[in-house]
Structures are given as C-alpha cells and as structure tokens.
C-alpha cells in the first residue's frame, strides 16, 4: 500500500470503484461545502476536490479536502501546475499530507484566460507529467524534485492523473497515458465519456500496452441535464465528443423528462463501462447536480459502497 487510502484499498481489492467530484465554492461559504458533502457521503469511495477548476477562483483544494476528512469523507486533492511553481507544489504536498490527505490528482490545469482572473500570470514551471514524476519521487525516494536532497517525513500518496481519449491526435492518446503511468500514476480518471465506441478502441490499445495492469483506469461520466447543455457540450467543449444519437435522445424527450433521460443514459453508460476490460471504476462528475449521485449509483447497482 502506498497511501492506505480508502480509494487505493477499494481498487487494490479489485472492487469496482466510484469517485465523485466536488467543486469548492467561489468564496469561503463552508455551508455550501457541507451541503455537497451530505449529498456525496456514503455514495462514493472518494471525492475529487477540484483546484480552481476552469481557472475560476475558489476555496483551496487543500482546505476543502481537510473539511471533507473532518466530515468523514475521503478527498482526492486535485492540484494544477498553473498556479504553483515547484516550491509551492512541494510545500503544499507536505502540508496536505500532514493534514491527512492521501489521494492526489496531478493536472496541468485549465488556462487562466478561461477563468475569472484572465489577466493573471500563469506559472507552468513544470507540467502534469513532471508533477506525477516529482510526487512519485517524493513518496518513493524521499527526495525533493530534481535534487538528491532528502525530505523530512514520509509522503504517502495514492497518485492520480487525468487522461482524455477524445482530444487529437487520438492515436497518440493511449501512449500519452502510458507516459503518465511510467511517470508514476497509480490511478487515472478520464474526461467524460459519451462515445463508447471510441472509448473501447482506446481501452483496447491501453490494455495492449499493459496499462490496465500497471494502474487503475477509471472512466469519467457526467449525467446530461437537458438538451441545451448536451448540444452546447457537443459543439463547444474541446475534448468532449457526444455522438448524435445521444444528442437526439436528449432532444427527443419532453423538457420535463430530460433530466430523467440524462440519468438513464448515464446509468446505461456505467453498465456498459463496467463490461470493458481494464476499467476498474468510474469517476462520476455530477457537476452542480450532486443530489442525483445517490439515484444514479442506486440505479447502476453500485451501492452500498464496499467497506475495506
């Protein structure tokens, strides 16, 4: 065991894991965090805490993760390299692990021009793969990034990374994932999947490369709320592919039934994903729709969560 985290135990035991996602508030409103915790608790094995996602300033991922721990829910602390250089990254990792955080997801981060501080200077001292490599080194070799200097203490982290099979060049994506695994990723979560055919093709190559044996691959799913959101995402969000048949299904149902249909699609997707070789779990991103997590996972027969 690298971290003794619940997520690691579930995955290592061979259980089909479920992670959720929690976006901290755009301020310090603790109640908003607690409300979301209430909706997720007991339904998932761990919860990703986003780090200023889409470059919008929010409560820090580390602090929110600590709040989760106090409330009895396991966090996956996300960390982006957009806002921190290697000094801040390592310092934050020491702080986070000292507070009891055991899972960390290494990301490059959405570009700052998308967010609410578009005039900010970015950092990008290192990239996401270099971050994975650096964290692995902190944990396994107990050395600071890029030096032979020893750290004081132990960094016990279950190291995660993200991957996106739906961004060009498609043929390269399994190989880039391999690079992340080689750098030290223990689990990886994907961008939301809607195009099953494409994901299966990706997984076939990933398994041929042996990646499913070297790390835990978790498939990302996001329930669609309505036809408008579906069309918008299909058209405007780079790195997300929504096949026409799903757009059609969401558009064909009456407005008041759209949410139900979105959940139905999501459940079907989860069932299909469970059958794919190499998929060890799902990462359910019910963005600002946390109240549906329990329903989705019940229908998908993924509850109750295993106690390990």
């Amino acid at each position, binding site marked *: 065991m690298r971290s003794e985290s619940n997520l690691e135990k579930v995955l290592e035991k061979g259980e089909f894991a479920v992670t959720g996602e929690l976006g901290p508030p755009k301020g310090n409103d603790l109640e908003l965090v607690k409300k979301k915790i209430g909706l997720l608790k007991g339904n998932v094995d761990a919860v990703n805490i986003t780090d200023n996602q889409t470059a919008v300033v929010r409560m820090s991922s580390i602090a929110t993760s600590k709040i989760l721990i106090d409330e009895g829910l396991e966090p996956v602390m996300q960390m982006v390299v957009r806002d921190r250089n290697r000094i801040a990254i390592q310092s934050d990792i020491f702080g986070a692990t000292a507070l009891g955080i055991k899972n960390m997801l290494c990301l490059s981060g959405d570009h700052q021009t998308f967010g609410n501080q578009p005039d900010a200077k970015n950092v*990008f001292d290192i990239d996401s793969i270099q971050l994975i490599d650096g964290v692995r080194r902190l944990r396994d070799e107990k050395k600071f990034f890029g030096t032979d200097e020893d750290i004081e203490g132990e960094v016990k982290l279950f190291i995660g990374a993200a991957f996106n099979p739906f961004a060009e060049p498609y043929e390269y994506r399994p190989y880039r994932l391999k690079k992340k695994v080689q750098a030290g990723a223990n689990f990886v979560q994907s961008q939301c999947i809607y195009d099953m055919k494409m994901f299966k093709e990706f997984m076939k190559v990933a398994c041929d490369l042996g990646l499913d044996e070297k790390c835990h691959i978790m498939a990302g799913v996001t329930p669609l709320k309505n036809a408008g959101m579906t069309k918008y995402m299909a058209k405007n969000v780079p790195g997300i592919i929504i096949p026409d048949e799903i757009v059609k299904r969401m558009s064909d149902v009456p407005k008041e039934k759209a949410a139900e249909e979105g959940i139905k699609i999501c459940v079907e997707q989860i069932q299909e994903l469970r059958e794919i070789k190499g998929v060890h779990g799902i990462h359910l991103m019910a963005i600002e729709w946390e109240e549906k997590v329990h329903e989705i996972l019940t229908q998908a027969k993924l509850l109750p969560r295993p106690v390990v």
Partner: protein
Amino acid sequence: MIVGDRKPIEEIKEMLTPYKKILLVGCGTCISVCMTGGEKEVGILASELRIISDLEKKGWEITEDTIQRQCEREYIEPLKEKFDQADVVMSMACGVGVQYMAEVFPHKIVLPAVNTTFYGTNVAEGEWQERCAGCGDCVLDKTLGICPVARCSKGLFNGPCGGTDKGKCEVNKDLDCAWYLIYNRLKEHGKLDMLDEVMSIRSWKSSLHGGPRKRVREEAQK
C-alpha cells in the same frame, strides 16, 4: 526578429504632454521590418502628433530621425546634438533600444512608443507569429523545430494536453496547438519514438528566472 506594436495614441499623448521639443527616433532593424517603428512609421506618428498638437494646442515641435540600430552605441552616438536640443526623446524601437539610448545619453529621458511583444517571424504579408521565448535552454532538437515553451499556451514539455481542438489550441481557435504540430512533425520524420521518454523537469535559471542574463566572451573583450 523582435516584434512590437505601437502603443495606443492616447497613451503616447499622455506621455508627451509635459514636453514641447520632442525627438522621435525610429530603428532600422527588427522593428522596422515588422512595420512598427521604422522610418515610415516615425513619419506617420510624427504627422499624427503634429495634427494633434495643432488641434489640441499642445505646442509640440517634432524632430524625426531613424537610425540603423538602437541597440548599438555606434549608431546612437551621432544623435548627440539632436538629443541635446530635445526636451524628451521618444523611441519607436523595442525595449532594448529605449533603454540603451537612455544609457548612452543618461541626461535625457527616453519614452517608449512601442509595446515590445515577441521574437517571431513574418509568416505571411502582414502577419507575424511568435517562435522563440529566449528561455536559454533550447529543446528544438527534441521537438524537431517547434518550440513548446514559446508556442504551447501552457509551455508543456510533455504535451499535448486534453485541450487540443481539431489541431488548434483551446485558448484561441486561431492558434495552432504546438504539440499537435510536434506530434505530426515527429510522425512525418518517423521519429514518434522520441515522444516515449518523459521530458524531465528543467532548470529555469537560464531563463529570466535566474536574474537578468549577461554574456561574456573574453577573447572579444579589450
């Protein structure tokens, strides 16, 4: 070449308001080639300033000159008389020229008329693109000539990230994804295996982050 954009006229007007006799100096090298601060642009700005001065009663007297290079002392020194006669000097060169003219003639204030933007090339008539970031540790051998530092919006060394959109960068649809270009170039040359290795964490000391840079060649010194 070094590329720049002329500053907005309002900003230039505000800078010049306290002065009467203005020496406007262009530079005949990079900034001239990128059509921002050469002899012609000095003529245009001087004409604009004369019109503004007339309409807004600024009382400006504009003297124009363009030298070959504002980054070299030999070209700046002959301007001594004109510097002496002016209340202020406005440079249409890159930031190097602005600073170096003030270093050569420290008794005079030199104002910038240009925002220096990047090291780039003239890819087509009327279009310039960034190519180099001057980071001091070139990796173009590993990317077959496409710079991830200057041309990837996130400066990634192990791209492409998930934000590639039909070969374009998610930051701006007009911007090529540098890593998409790198991938295709490596593929064209049958060298995709070069991507297998993780490009490791680098030192930024050679970049501006080690403090302002200086270069000495002893055999060329006196």
